[in-house]
C-alpha cells in the first residue's frame, strides 16, 4: 500500500475518534455541569480541557476569557480551530477524498453526507439544538465505524485506520482522567460538583454504564481510575487501546523488519506491558498526573515511529495533511479545461 494512503487511513481513524470524544465530552459537560457548577468551576473545567487538548493558546488568542458559551462555539463550529468538530470532520473527509479509490463507495458517500450535514451549521443552530447536534456527531462517528467495519476489506488500510483510532482513543481516555478530584486515592467526592465531575469523566468515555456493572453506582475515584486505565475488556480503557495498538503494529509490520519497524513494535509492546502489569499503587506513588503524562508521551513516540516506519515522513505528520496554503495556490495554477 502507498505510504500516503496508509497515512490517510491512519488519520481518518484519529480525526473521527477525536471528533467523537470531543462531541461526547462537550455534550456531557455542558448538560451535567453548567447547571450545577459555579462560573469559576466551569472556567476551571474548560480551561483544563483546552489545556489537555492543546487548544488553550488558540482559544485565548481568539476569545480571551474562558466562558462556557465561547468555548462551546470554539470546539464545535469554529473555522479557526483546527480541532473543532467541523474542521475535524472536514479533515477526515479530505483524507478520504485523497484515497477515494481505496474506500468502499459506502464509506465515501457516508463521509460526504456527514461532511455536508455539518458544513452549513451556524452558531444559532448550535444553541437551538445543542444536544441534537452533539449527539448527531457522536452517533455518526459510531455509525461511520460500522460502515467501515461492514464494507472494508481487512487489508493494511483497515489496520492503519484501527491503529489511528486506538492511538487517539488511548490518549483521549488518559486525558479524561487528569482532573483533581481523581488525583488522590483517598478522596471522596464531597461537593456536588465533584461528584458530577466523576460522573462526567465516566460518561465522557461512554463508560458509566459499564463501570456500574462492575462497581455498582457508587462513584469512587480510585475505582474510576482503575476502570478507565486498566480494565481489560472495556474498549475505551487505556489498557485496551494499548493492547490493540501493539497488536496492530505487529500485524502491519508483517515480515519486513527494518529498524524503524522494530522500534515501533518495541515501543508499543512496552506501553502495552506497562498497562497490563501496572497497578494503582504504582500510579499513585508516581502521581496520577505524571503517570498520565508518561502514557501520553509514549503514545506520541509510537505515533512518530509509525510515521517513520510506514509513512516515510521524518516525524510527526499532522502538519503534512492537508497541504499548506502555498501548495493550494500552486494547484490552482495548473491547467484546466
Amino acid at each position, binding site marked *: 500500500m*502507498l505510504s*500516503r494512503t496508509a497515512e490517510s487511513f491512519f488519520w481518518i481513524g484519529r480525526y473521527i475518534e477525536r471528533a467523537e470524544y470531543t462531541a461526547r465530552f462537550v455534550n456531557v459537560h455542558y448538560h451535567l455541569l453548567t447547571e450545577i457548577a459555579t462560573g469559576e468551576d466551569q472556567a476551571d473545567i474548560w480551561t483544563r480541557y483546552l489545556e489537555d487538548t492543546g487548544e488553550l493558546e488558540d482559544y485565548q488568542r481568539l476569545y480571551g476569557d474562558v466562558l462556557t458559551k465561547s468555548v462551546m462555539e470554539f470546539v464545535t463550529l469554529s473555522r479557526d480551530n483546527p480541532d473543532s468538530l467541523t474542521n475535524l470532520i472536514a479533515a477526515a473527509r479530505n483524507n478520504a477524498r*485523497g484515497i*477515494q*479509490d481505496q474506500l468502499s463507495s459506502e464509506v465515501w458517500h457516508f463521509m460526504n453526507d456527514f461532511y455536508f450535514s455539518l458544513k452549513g451549521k451556524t452558531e444559532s443552530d448550535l444553541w437551538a439544538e445543542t444536544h441534537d447536534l452533539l449527539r448527531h456527531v457522536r452517533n455518526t462517528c459510531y455509525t461511520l465505524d460500522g460502515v467501515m467495519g461492514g464494507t472494508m476489506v481487512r487489508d493494511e488500510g483497515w489496520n492503519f485506520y484501527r491503529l489511528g483510532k486506538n492511538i487517539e482513543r488511548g490518549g483521549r481516555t488518559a486525558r479524561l482522567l487528569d482532573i483533581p478530584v481523581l488525583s488522590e486515592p483517598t478522596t471522596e467526592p464531597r461537593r456536588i460538583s465533584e461528584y458530577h465531575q466523576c460522573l462526567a469523566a465516566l460518561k465522557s468515555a461512554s463508560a458509566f454504564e459499564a463501570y456500574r456493572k462492575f462497581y455498582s453506582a457508587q462513584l469512587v475515584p480510585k475505582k474510576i481510575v482503575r476502570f478507565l486505565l486498566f480494565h481489560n475488556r472495556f474498549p475505551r480503557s487505556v489498557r485496551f487501546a494499548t493492547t490493540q495498538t501493539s497488536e496492530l503494529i505487529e500485524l502491519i509490520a508483517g515480515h519486513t523488519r527494518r529498524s524503524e519497524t522494530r522500534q515501533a513494535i518495541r515501543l508499543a509492546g512496552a506501553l502495552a506491558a506497562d498497562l497490563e502489569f501496572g497497578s494503582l499503587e504504582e500510579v499513585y506513588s508516581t502521581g496520577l498526573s505524571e503517570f498520565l503524562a508518561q502514557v501520553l508521551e509514549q503514545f506520541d513516540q509510537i505515533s512518530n515511529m509509525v510515521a517513520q516506519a510506514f509513512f516515510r515522513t521524518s516525524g510527526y505528520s499532522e502538519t503534512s495533511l492537508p497541504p499548506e496554503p502555498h501548495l493550494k495556490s500552486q*494547484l490552482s495554477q*495548473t*491547467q*484546466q*479545461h
Partner: protein
Amino acid sequence: MKSLFDRYQMKSGFDEIFESSGVPRRHYRRLVERLGNFPLKDLDLKRKQADQAFLRQGITFTVYGDPQQTEKIFPFDLLPRIIPNTEWHIIEAGIKQRVRALNMFLADLYGDQRILNDQVVPRELIESSEHFQKDLVGFCPPKGVYIHVSGIDLVRNHEGQYYVLEDNLRTPSGISYVLENRLVMKQLFPNLFADMQVRPVDQYPAELLENLKGLAPTGKDNPTVVLLTPGVFNSAYFEHSFLSLQMGIQMVEGRDLVVESDKVYMKTTQGLEQIDVIYRRVDDAFLDPEIFRKDSVLGVPGLVRAYRAGNVALANGIGNGIADDKAVYTFVPKMIEYYLSEQPILQNVPTYMCGIPEDQQYVLEHLGELVVKAVAESGGYGMLMGPSSTKAQQDEFRKKILANPRSYIAQPVVTLSHHPCVIDGKERINLMGRHVDLRPFVLWGKDITLSLGGLTRVALKEGSLVVNSSQGGGSKDTWVLYGDE
C-alpha cells in the same frame, strides 16, 4: 395531446432538436414522443435526484480563486443530445484525421522539423512558444506516440455545420462526466433506453488501460501503471480518482514517487515499488522541478531523466502544448494537407493572429465583433467576447494585444447551435434553448478510437457562448445512435 415541448420557444439559429418549422429532426422524433408525455413536475423531481446523486458521490469540481474552496457539482441537464450514426461517422473520420496529423506534427517538431524547414509553419511561431520543449528535440517517445489521450472541441454554427474550436492534447478532462452522466440517465429513465438504440460508452476505461499497458518498456508482462494526480485541490480530481478506480490502478501524487538510478518508484508501506507507465494528469510545467518549474511540489524530481532513459512511459508525452496552442491551431488544416495529402474533413473556425500585422490591424478595428482569446489560457479565462463587451474592456484588450501581439488570437463570433434545456423559471421550470458544444475523447493505442459521442457542454446562462464549467457551464448525456432515427 399536450406535450412537454409545447412550451418550448424556439430561438433563431440552429436548434439541435427542432427544424425551423418546429418539427423534431428525424433522430430526435422518438425522444420527443416519449418525453413529451412527461409531467413537468416529475422532470423537476428527476433533476433534484440527479443533483443529489452527484453531490453525494463527490462528483464535484473546485472553483479556483475562491477562498472557501467551494465544491460545486457540474450542473447536469436532463435532455440528452443525440447524434445520428451517419453524422457521427463524419465526425469520427474528421477527428481521427486531425489527431493523426497533429501527432505527425509533434514527431516532426521534436525530430527533423521538415514542416519548419519547408516554411509551411513559421519557425518563429514555434520557437517563441513556452510550450515548445527544446530539450526534448531528438527524443522519440515509445512508438512515436505523443497524443495518447485528447479531447477535440467541436461547435456547430447557425447552419448546423461542425467546426473544430480547439484541440486539447495535454491533459483534457471530462470523460468521467460522460460515463457518470450515462449512469445517472439510465437510473432516472430506465425505460427510455430500452428502445432508443443508444450505443454504449462504457468501454473507455478498459481501452485506456490496455493502451497504457501497451506503452510499458519491453519485456514487462504485467506492467505497473499508475495515474499521477496533482491532488484533491485540482478541479478534475474527481475524474482522476474515478478513472483510477475504473481501471483498477493506483492513483499517486508527486510526493508518493521517487526517482533512483533513472527509475521511478512509489513509496509503499513495504518499501519501494517500480513503476512502468504513468498516466499523468499533471501539466508539463509542474512535472519535474529539475527541468521545468523549480518550485513545483506536484511533480517528481528526475522524472524526465527516467522518461528519456526509457525506463518509464508517460501518457501524454511531454511537449504536446506546442500543438494545441491557439496560434498553432490556425495551421492544422495545412498540416493535414502537408503530412497526409488529404483535405481536412472538419473545418477550423477562421482565426486572426494578432502576431501578423494585417490580422492585428483587422482585429483592433473590429474588437466589438470578435472573440479575442489569450493563446496560453484555457478554461474560458482571459477572453473578450466582443459583442457583449464594454468600451473599457475593449480598451483593456487593445492594450494587451499591442503589448504582446503573439499572445492573442481573434475569431468571428460563431452563433453556436442551441439545445433545449430544463431551466429554472420564476415559478416553475421551463424548457429553454442554450448553446452547446461537443468534446469527443480520442484514444491512441493500436488504433485511434473515439469515445462514442463525448461530452456535450452547455452554456446554462442565457445567451452565453462560454461552456466551461468554471464559467457556469453544465453538461448533457450524449447519445450516438446505432442508426439514423
